[in-house]
Every structure is written in structure tokens, then in C-alpha cells.
């Protein structure tokens, strides 16, 4: 799976997905459902646009002063008894987790949902090192059993039907086949309950890091994050450095926009604000580690253009709204964060040479920007990345030639007219342009008998 999981295979992956009608139907059902519910819970807030602006402003303030707020956060969290560690890349972060696990001779880890851990391939790494690591979010658990990757950042198994999941459970867990969601959920609860109670380490991500109070904030619905960060002796949270926000009161803004954008909910079922290890509390881990991960983020910070992508609160709304994502599905992107925002992050984190197809996988319609709860101008950044790709000669010669011809024709009315005439002449004598890659999935546009200019001159002007 790993070798094929690269953005460079975008085109062939996309083509395969487009031809898989069952998968597309599963995906579209899920997308449609969430988007229509989202409209309902967004429209009941008359000040939605003000909230978005407020969320944008706070994220901007945080990212513009990121080292300042990280310093405050670290000081506060450390005072509260949380051990803060920096990791400059995936390898460092993975080894830090392994080191902690080895020190306590850990056999079993329970994991709650964390895209950053997907980003660094943590689960696979721990398993390779002989530590059983179990995803406890139902969607992630399904994807882990299937040996796949999440297809969306908040709904990882949205590409799967209940029948597929039923068959998977029957095969992997040895239970009787059922396709009833309630039954399947109960089976997962029973199986994972045991893991929770026996785990040595709980691994989580973080939705926000509050500088003012040193809190690790985790938002969820199932209760698995709550259990993963309460029952085991050790809790390791991994967060990108961009997760920091200045004040506790900022959370009230993000809670309003995040739930609505991610899962079309007014408020998620559970929010944990974790401030300190056990201390006098009757339960909670004895030790809490927070790994602050860079992994290419400072590279984004250095670029005035790309910096804005770090405002992202990972709700996944831009994916659902994107006509390209809707057509090709999350796996086609070949990167842990798919869709419009993922195309930016991949280009910055992997390097443009390893992600070239992605900035072009957009219709630039701007729906991603319209739906984004923190108002990131995703489509503008994608255009800029395309520009970079052209500058660095990452586009084909044919494409360049076509655009050169196009520019030559568009710059001069006479040449344009002559060109249009030539095309009409070619059509008359029966020569069709052959552009297979383009026309394979599209109708070739008909060339009009007369151009608008001609009609205007002869018939409409008077």
C-alpha cells in the first residue's frame, strides 16, 4: 500500500476511483448527508460570518506570533506537570514515543483519532516494534481492520458501506455477519473495552493547545478519546506546533465553528480540557507527554503565501465541498490530508516535486474558501502553487506549448479572429482536433457556425 500511496499517482488513482461506481455512491451519500445537515446548523446562527471572521483573526494572531504563544504554553503546561517535547520531524517523534514505550515495557497502546499520528506513520511504526497499537475511534478501527488509510480526516470510513463493514468484522473479529450499524458498534465496543482496560499507553492528538492555561484540548463524539486519555498509566499527546491558540475564551469561538463544519453538529458530545496528570485525582494518567511536531510546518511559516494554511483547524469541510474530492475520493490524493487544504499541505510538507499533481487537482471554484470556518483562501494559494510548479518546470512541454499558443492568440484580436476562422474551416472539411486525455471523459465542445463578433456586427448591432 505504501508505495502506491503517493500524490504522484493522483491521476491513475483518481481514474480507478471514478470507475468504481459503488465506492462513489458510498462517498456521495455520506457527503450529501453531512453537507445538508451542515446548512441546517449553520443557518441558525445569524452571526456565522462574524464568527468565521473571529475564528480567522484568532488563528492569524496565533500563527503570526506562534513562538511567543508556544513559549507561554510550554511554561504553563510544564508548571501543571505535563512534559513537553519538541520533534523536528516524523522520525524524531516516532522515536520519542518508542522510547517512552520501551522504558515502561509497554505491550499495548490504545489510540484515539489523530491525523498527526497518521502523518508520521506512528501506528505502523509501533507495531513494527512489537507494540500492539489499536485505533479506538470506530471509523479508524474499521480502516485499521481493513488495512486501509482514512479517506477523510473526520470521517475516515466514509467510503465504506455497512455491508462491507459487516463482512470485515465477520472475517477479522470472528463474529457472525450483521450489517446493522447498532450491532456493529456494539461489537466494536466490546472488543475495544478490553483494550482500554489493559492498555499501558494512551495516544491522542490535540485539537487545540491553550497558551493561557497550558491545556490540551480534545474534541470528540464517541468517548474513546476520553477513555484513551484517562485509563492508561501514560498519555502521549501529539500535536502540530500550529495547534496553539492564545486564550481559553478563544475556545468558545472554535467550538461553535468546528462541530458545525466537521460533522454538522451544534456541539460535539465530548470535550476534554486536560491540564495536568493524576495528582490528587482518583483517575488519570500518572504521566502526560505532549510532543510538539514540526515536520515541515516551519517551512510553511517562512512563506508569506503558505503560512495561512496553518490556520486550518482540520474540520474537513473543504473536502466535502470540493467538486474534485467529491469525484475522486480521499484516497486518490495519496496523502494523509486529502482535498483542497491537503493539496497545499502536501506541496509544502513533501515538497512540490513529490506533490505536483495536487495543486492542479482543483477547479479553483473557491467552494473550499467559502465553506472554510477560518476563511483560508485555499484556491488562491493553489493558484500560487501552480505558478511555482510552472516556474520550477514541473509541467509538461505540451501543456506549455498549448498555453503559449493560447496567449499568442488572446493577445491580439486579429490573430484570435483568424484562429477561430481556421478552426471553423477545419471543422467544415471534417478534421477534428485529437486531444484524447481531455476528451476521453468529456464531450468536445462544438465550434459555433458563426462567432459572436460576426453575429453582433451583422445582426445585432442595429
Amino acid at each position: 500500500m505504501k508505495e502506491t500511496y503517493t500524490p504522484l499517482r493522483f491521476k491513475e488513482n483518481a481514474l480507478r476511483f471514478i470507475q468504481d461506481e459503488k465506492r462513489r455512491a458510498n462517498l456521495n451519500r455520506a457527503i450529501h448527508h453531512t453537507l445538508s445537515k451542515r446548512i441546517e446548523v449553520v443557518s441558525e446562527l445569524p452571526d456565522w460570518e462574524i464568527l468565521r471572521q473571529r475564528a480567522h483573526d484568532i488563528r492569524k494572531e496565533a500563527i503570526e506570533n506562534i513562538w511567543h504563544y508556544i513559549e507561554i504554553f510550554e511554561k504553563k503546561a510544564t508548571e501543571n506537570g505535563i512534559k513537553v517535547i519538541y520533534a523536528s520531524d516524523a522520525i524524531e517523534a516516532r522515536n520519542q514515543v518508542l522510547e517512552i514505550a520501551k522504558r515502561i515495557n509497554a505491550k499495548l497502546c490504545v489510540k484515539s483519532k489523530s491525523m498527526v499520528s497518521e502523518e508520521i506513520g506512528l501506528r505502523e511504526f509501533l507495531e513494527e516494534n512489537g507494540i500492539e497499537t489499536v485505533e479506538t475511534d470506530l471509523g479508524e478501527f474499521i480502516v485499521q481492520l481493513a488495512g486501509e488509510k482514512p479517506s477523510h480526516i473526520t470521517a475516515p470510513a466514509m467510503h465504506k458501506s455497512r455491508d462491507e463493514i459487516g463482512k470485515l468484522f465477520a472475517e477479522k473479529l470472528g463474529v457472525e455477519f450483521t450489517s446493522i450499524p447498532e450491532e456493529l458498534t456494539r461489537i466494536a465496543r466490546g472488543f475495544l473495552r478490553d483494550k482500554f482496560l489493559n492498555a499501558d499507553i494512551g495516544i491522542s492528538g490535540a485539537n487545540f493547545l491553550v497558551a493561557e492555561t497550558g491545556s490540551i484540548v480534545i474534541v470528540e463524539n464517541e468517548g474513546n478519546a476520553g477513555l484513551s486519555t484517562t485509563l492508561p498509566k501514560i498519555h502521549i499527546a501529539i500535536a502540530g506546533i500550529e495547534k496553539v491558540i492564545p486564550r481559553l475564551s478563544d475556545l468558545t469561538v472554535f467550538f461553535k465553528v468546528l462541530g458545525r463544519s466537521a460533522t454538522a453538529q451544534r456541539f460535539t458530545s465530548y470535550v476534554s480540557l486536560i491540564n495536568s496528570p493524576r495528582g490528587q485525582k482518583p483517575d488519570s494518567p500518572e504521566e502526560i507527554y505532549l510532543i510538539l511536531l514540526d515536520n515541515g510546518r516551519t517551512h510553511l511559516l517562512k512563506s508569506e503565501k503558505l503560512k495561512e494554511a496553518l490556520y486550518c483547524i482540520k474540520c474537513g469541510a473543504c473536502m466535502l465541498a470540493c467538486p474534485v474530492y467529491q469525484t475522486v475520493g480521499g484516497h486518490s490524493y495519496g496523502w494523509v490530508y486529502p482535498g483542497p487544504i491537503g493539496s497545499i499541505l502536501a506541496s509544502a510538507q513533501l515538497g512540490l516535486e513529490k506533490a505536483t499533481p495536487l495543486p492542479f487537482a482543483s477547479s479553483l471554484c473557491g467552494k473550499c474558501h467559502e465553506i472554510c470556518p477560518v476563511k483560508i483562501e485555499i484556491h488562491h494559494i493553489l493558484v500560487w502553487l501552480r505558478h511555482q510548479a510552472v516556474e520550477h518546470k514541473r509541467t509538461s512541454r505540451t501543456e506549455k506549448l498549448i498555453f503559449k499558443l493560447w496567449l499568442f492568440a488572446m493577445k491580439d484580436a486579429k490573430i484570435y479572429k483568424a484562429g477561430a476562422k481556421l478552426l471553423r474551416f477545419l471543422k467544415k472539411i471534417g478534421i477534428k482536433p485529437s486531444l484524447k486525455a481531455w476528451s476521453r471523459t468529456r464531450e468536445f465542445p462544438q465550434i459555433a457556425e458563426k462567432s459572436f463578433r460576426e453575429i453582433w456586427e451583422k445582426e445585432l448591432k442595429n
Partner: protein
Amino acid sequence: MGERTEKLIERFKLEFERVGGVFIMAKKDQILPILNQTLKVENAEKIFVEKFDEELSDILKQLDAKQIITQAHSEKQLAEVDASITGCDYLIAETGTIVFIHNEKRFKSSILLPRVHIVIAKSEQIYESLEHVFEKMDKKFDSIFLVTGPSRTADIEKVIVKGVHGPQMVYLILI
């Protein structure tokens, strides 16, 4: 009870029921029969009861249950419990949220492990929004847990299923 509090309670009830919670208003002398009835409906025999003030503790001692645990010594023990009865710190009307401050007397796992969670709250604990609670709260708080309805998922074809890892039912009894 002031008009303002009444309005807040009404809003809380609406939002809490909308996320699938069961809201019950009660006078002190009604608590015992309500709890007994609830435990019967939920078929809960083994229950965990958090430490309450003396008056409530005395009431809760008379509960009709096969086994009552007041001193949990392990999370494994809490995992075997059918229902837990706990207090809470604040209620948020705007979202139907129950706020728990994780302190010396509170097991966070008692909120999550049993399949039924019953919360006893007082009407003076209700606030309009999370902003108000944050203002009211001491900034040097220990950990906090916000609960809005039962545990849920929509990971299988967007069908909402309750009681994934946390409780399937959350009751709030407001005194």
C-alpha cells in the same frame, strides 16, 4: 426561582433533549422514587454513586439496587457497573452541556464507562454559555470534561448510533 433561571432551564432542556438526553425536574423528596424508577427502566443492578453532600448521600443510601459502590478502587470495577450517579459543576443552557471539573472526588471514567449515566444538578449551576462558565471559573482549574448528550458515532453510513464507548443514556435530574 427567578424568571431568568427559568428561561435558562427551558433552553437547557430543549438543547439537552435535542442531543438525546433525558431531562427531569425534581424536588428533593422526589429524587429517590425517580432514581429507583430510572434504574428499573434501565435494568441497572450494579451502580456507582459519587460522593455527595450529607443530605443527598442519605437519600442515595436508600436506593433500590443490588449493589451500590461508593468507593471505587479501580477503573476495572467501574467498567462492570451498569449505571453511575454523579454530580456536576455547571450546566450550559445554550448547548445543553454538562461541565465536570476533574478533581479529587471525581472519576472521569465513572462518566464514561457505565452504559447509563445519571447526573444530579442544582438550578443555580446553570449558565447561559460556555463564555460565562469560563469567566466564572478559576483559571487555575484542573482538567475539565464537557459532556453534551450520550456517546455517539456516525461512522457507519452516517447512521447515528448511541453508546459507542461512553454511555448510551444520559439523565439529568435538576433539583
